[in-house]
């Protein structure tokens, strides 16, 4: 098991992503950060903090539960649901930035796109991820990436965030040393 990002590196990556989001979208006024539970929500909150620090303006924030849109539901017992909360202004004509911790097969994001479909028509949908570990199974790409980490399919990437796990770090497990 090896640590590929420590707390300081995570913080730097998120700060950079925050800048990139602001740059691409010409500020934060039309942006909505939607975190995908569980850890995507924490990362979205941190990005919002960063943006507040940079622009001195609050960016719209929400969570998007994608459980009901997953394509693998029937492979195991039903998964528990998590909350969905959108800003009161809705998502129409906004730049929705989906936020997640690890980008892997792309199926989670596909489910998120389906979920968004029901909720409105954003102007654009963008994707911000802390870690991109490759092995895409669908033609989906990320707009903002914290760190690219090549992995073997058998390995697993664990993101720990202090709000949930007590500490900040990204680890890879199952890698032979």
């Amino acid at each position, binding site marked *: 098991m090896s640590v590929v990002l420590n707390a300081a590196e995570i913080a730097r990556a998120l700060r950079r992503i925050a800048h990139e989001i602001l740059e691409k979208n010409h500020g934060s006024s039309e942006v909505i950060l939607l975190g995908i539970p569980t850890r995507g929500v924490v990362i979205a909150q941190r990005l919002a903090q960063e943006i507040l620090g940079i622009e001195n303006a609050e960016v719209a924030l929400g969570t998007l*539960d994608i459980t009901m849109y997953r394509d693998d539901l*029937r492979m195991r017992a*039903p998964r*528990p*649901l998590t*909350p*969905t909360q959108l800003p009161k202004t809705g998502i129409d004509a906004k730049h929705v930035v989906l936020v997640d911790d690890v980008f892997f097969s792309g199926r989670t994001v596909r489910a998120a796109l389906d979920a968004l479909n029901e*909720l409105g028509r954003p102007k654009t949908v963008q994707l911000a991820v802390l870690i991109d570990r490759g092995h895409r199974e669908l033609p989906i790409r990320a707009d903002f990436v914290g760190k690219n980490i090549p992995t073997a399919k058998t390995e697993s990437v664990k993101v720990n965030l202090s709000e949930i796990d007590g500490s900040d770090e990204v680890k890879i497990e199952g890698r032979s040393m």
Partner: protein
Amino acid sequence: MRDLLSINDLTKDDALEILDTAVHLSDLSDSSSRKFPTLRGRTVVNLFFEDSTRTRISFEAAAKRLSADVINFSAKGSSVSKGESLKDTALTLQAMGADAVIIRHGSSGAPAQLARKRWIDGAVINAGDGTHEHPTQALLDAFTIRRHLRKDLGDLAGLKIAVVGDVLHSRVARSNVLLLQKLGAAVVLVAPPTLLPVGVEHWGAQVSFAIDEVIAECDAVMMLRVQKERMEDLFFPSEREYARNFGLNAARIAAMKESAIVMHPGPMNRGLEITAEGADSKRSVIVEQVANGVSVRMAVLYLLIGGATSRDLAVQIGEQS
């Protein structure tokens, strides 16, 4: 959870899981026709042997909002229908490949028969059997109470709920007593002695013949429908006497706690068990109960057939071998 036949099939955690799932499904409830693809390809059958527009529509809406295919089967078999009616009907549905069968029947125990004898392979959901139980009604009632009095969180410990009316014949009462207690609430049953079952003393609920003595301490008052035909069977002498002593009228509403709510599973007999003041008062959550019913039934369908069912697993094992 394979079937939902009785509240006794659920542990406290199961019940809370259903309620919590319903909460999330009702997020963004102003986009009230929010649809999910989750049960696409699943077939849900409404097998109603008793007329019931509201429950059937509620289940139909729930199934459709999960993108399931819905088949409505209204079998006008009466209470003297022979075994072939239920059994053969069930076997026919089985042949059509129903993933879930929602059954309402005039005989207590009919859903249990379907499930136990496995005439139906899919999930069996009891939508009301005779005078036995109506589990999804109790779940939506608990959901409604929890929304108003516990902000959608946790259980119902510390709350006192009155269930008023024809307890003897009420499947709603039975399911509610079981579920409310399971979730930690105290229950008081209020009815004339003729409308309480022999053996009610084993239910763990307080029993009272006088609504005025208990109404002020209740956080929710659930009025049960009283059938006028009960007068012919000598359960009470007249509508007037019943309404006067057990009806929810303006005076009793005024005696209720500030935060207390009024509930009714519907359909109401305005003027008998509940007056217009009661039904239309700002304490009444009766209309909201109906909307909550759809969310709760969506949750039940999701938890029963949204994930892998035994049939799915059997197919997977078959594919692997």
